[in-house]
């Protein structure tokens, strides 16, 4: 149905796409796979009329079409659901679906007809969403469903979904896949972009792999082993995806006892105690909202009014703010780099050195040379790919942004590094590199706390795993006994008088 042939697109200094081919059949769910920066989003933007390719052609039903703006894409039946949802939060579902083409009655917009029409569309998918609800009151997954309904209402035949599952729960993913299968059965072709390999098997028919802006190949998902796909993506075989030399029974080096966020309502941390040994990677597993990040925020001095004692090497620490924590050698790389980490418009250098300004700014003297030395040191250490130190960090790929973030906190020379979801939104190649770096750091004597919702990561990387549920620790498993089942059992344990109740 859709054919993109020999697509080339370059930006100043970068060839983003070189002779890329892509085919989509009607009724097919086709995955587009590649590391960050491989050219997936550029290809999608060419299809959506946001970028215009310098070479190549796009055929729909065998006929060449010109897509040089967003409306042309829509007229050709192409809809794109971006990773960041573009719904208006304070308007209703119906208003969002009909945004810009509201049905007009005698006195302006006919609200009733609009709600009814929207409700009909929603019901067709059995979504259980009211067309009169506000978008802001829906979950992220429900908002995604609304986006899909909106796309379908434009009679779209080609639906592109950019990482739709990155922020929704497993049950919601299942519902999303149901809808995708339903749409495919009606003959809609779906292009599906995701980092999660496990989802491909479940929902996709074929997969096209891109690497460094070039076309690598197209495979039938069911006939292709996962290792082969990873190898295609990174361009080298992955003998060892997870690099970890486990340690056991090293001396205890850090202790947190009776950590409590001190909140009366919406309590997330309830009497949590744990310890970290020298050179260990300690995993923190649990469901979203179990209080893992919140516990670490207490330890790091971010939560006002939190209680509990923290000691390092037998000495009790007084931590009232992140500055205190960093002084003692504790650093925390936050979970959500967009919201909590990056200074988007600022340069890589600015982002790398914001914690260590005292090393080169003193008495109105800025030592530029030192600033760039520090920046370069952590670019090298993390193997970050950036064209220059002055590049705005927002222009880097997700993996490289994450490396800048980890580098920033490594610059404080921590003894204990807390990594909250260190590989979220990061491609497989960069993931493997981050694991390797973590292993290397612990060999040099650093201890790491790793909060992660990806069980394979926890199981393969952590020496010991604490599992949390409803604000308390429900168990601790060492690497020899760890398994998905063991973790999930503890993670779903009902705690007596759970913290959230």
């Amino acid at each position, binding site marked *: 149905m859709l054919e993109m042939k020999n697509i080339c697109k370059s*930006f100043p200094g970068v060839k983003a796409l070189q002779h890329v081919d892509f085919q989509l059949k009607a009724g097919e769910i086709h995955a587009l796979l590649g590391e960050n920066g491989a050219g997936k989003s550029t290809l999608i933007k060419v299809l959506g009329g946001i970028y215009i390719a310098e070479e190549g052609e796009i055929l729909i039903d065998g006929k060449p079409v010109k897509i040089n703006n967003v409306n042309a894409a829509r007229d050709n039946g192409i809809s794109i659901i971006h990773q960041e949802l573009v719904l208006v939060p304070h308007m209703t579902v119906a208003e969002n679906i009909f945004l810009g083409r509201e049905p007009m009655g005698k006195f302006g917009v006919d609200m009733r007809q609009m709600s009814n029409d929207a409700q009909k569309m929603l019901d067709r998918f059995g979504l259980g969403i009211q067309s009169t609800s506000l978008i802001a009151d829906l979950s992220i997954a429900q908002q995604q469903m609304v986006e899909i309904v909106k796309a379908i209402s434009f009679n779209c035949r080609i639906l592109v979904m950019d990482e739709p599952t990155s922020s929704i729960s497993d049950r919601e993913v299942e519902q999303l896949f149901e809808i995708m299968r339903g749409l495919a059965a009606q003959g809609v072709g779906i292009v599906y972009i995701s980092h999660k390999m496990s989802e491909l098997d479940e929902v996709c028919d074929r997969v096209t792999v891109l690497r460094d802006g070039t076309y690598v190949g197209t495979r039938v998902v069911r006939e292709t082993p996962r290792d082969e796909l990873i190898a295609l993506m990174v361009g080298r075989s992955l003998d060892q995806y997870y690099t970890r030399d486990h340690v056991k029974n090293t001396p205890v080096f850090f202790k947190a006892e009776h950590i409590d966020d001190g909140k009366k309502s919406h309590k997330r941390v309830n009497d949590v105690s744990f310890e970290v040994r020298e050179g260990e990677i300690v995993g923190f597993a649990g469901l979203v909202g179990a209080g893992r990040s919140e516990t670490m925020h207490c330890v790091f001095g*971010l939560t006002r009014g939190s209680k509990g004692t923290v000691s390092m090497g037998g000495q009790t620490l007084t931590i009232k*703010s*992140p*500055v205190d*924590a*960093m002084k003692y050698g504790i650093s*925390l790389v*936050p979970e959500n780099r967009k*919201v*909590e*980490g*990056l*200074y*988007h*418009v*600022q340069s890589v250098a*600015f982002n790398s050195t*914001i*914690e260590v*300004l*005292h090393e080169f*700014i003193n008495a*109105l*003297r*800025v030592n530029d040379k030192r600033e760039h030395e520090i920046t370069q040191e952590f670019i090298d250490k993390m193997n970050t790919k950036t064209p220059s130190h002055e590049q705005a960090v927002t222009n880097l790929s997700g993996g490289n942004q994450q490396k800048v973030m980890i580098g920033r906190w490594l610059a404080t020379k921590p003894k204990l590094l807390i990594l909250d979801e260190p590989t979220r939104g990061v491609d497989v190649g960069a993931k493997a590199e981050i694991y390797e770096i973590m292993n290397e750091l612990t060999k040099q004597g650093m201890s790491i706390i790793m909060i992660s919702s990806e069980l394979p990561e926890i199981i393969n990387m952590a020496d010991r795993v604490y599992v949390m549920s409803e604000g308390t620790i429900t168990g601790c498993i060492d690497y020899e006994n760890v398994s998905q089942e063991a973790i999930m059992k503890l993670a779903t344990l009902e705690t007596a008088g759970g913290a959230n109740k």
Partner: protein
Amino acid sequence: MSKVKRYFKDNLGIIVALAVMIVFLYVFPRTHSTFLTQTNIFNVLRQSSTNLMLACGMTMVIILGGIDLSVGSIIAMSGVLGAAAVVWHGMPEIVGILIAIVSGVVFGLLNGFIIAKTEIPPFIVTLASMNVAKGIAYVYSGGKPIRCMTDPWKFLGAGYVGPVPTPVVTMLIVFVVSVLFLNRTRIGRHIYAVGGNNTAAKFSGISTAKVKFIVYSYSGLMAGLAGITIASRLYSGTCTSGDGAEMDAIAAVVVGGTSMSGGSGKLGGTLIGVLIIGILNNGLNLMGVNSDWQYIVKGLVILLAVYTDFLRSRKKAA
């Protein structure tokens, strides 16, 4: 790339605009003989001096992602309080000047305190303090100018240091201090960090409240200084002086390339923005354009300057 080269590259659009304006005014027959004379150049600089003071504070406030609407009213209030101290209460001029400056700082501190400690948007907080400051100026002066003609009083606004008008000297000192503060201190970097991403700054261990407090206080200090400079030039503290000054300052900052969404901007750009607005005012006067029309021309020029900058940054992003 050297710093000078970089400066020209970053500000190319507005530098060209400034150059075009200067060349035009030099070539234009009606202004040819007057525009590039020493008297007129000092005139432009003197008229721009208070705007640059305000704009220095405003640049930091806007980089922080905020806005300070109160500076215009603080000009009126500090001028009135300073003049009243000297004329009505017989204090020495230097005390009057200090009172004026301190009153500006106090308002800045109040703005900073409320903005740092609460979630109230800076627009609202400074809108409120704008009204309060204006009110104080009217109540205290009874709506009439407080005349003060002594030589020490006139020095700051109408005096000279050698051949150079005092406000031009003050302006240069203020500019250098502001540049050092924003570019050469840790607090300066923290301003960019808080404006760029407030949550990330908290995770970085930056005291966002402290940074906000300092920046709004600095803006208040600038307003107090501008207030006493104007009161000195007018030989009086007047409750109508400084009307609309906050808008000229914001315009200069924005023309200078600082983004209203915070996190980025440079004082070097603001300097050019101030000069563009100063020369525009001066040039329109020399050309004999009716003052009512001047508003319209000024508005369009601001829009044009920002639009060309927008085009340039879009080109850079693509």
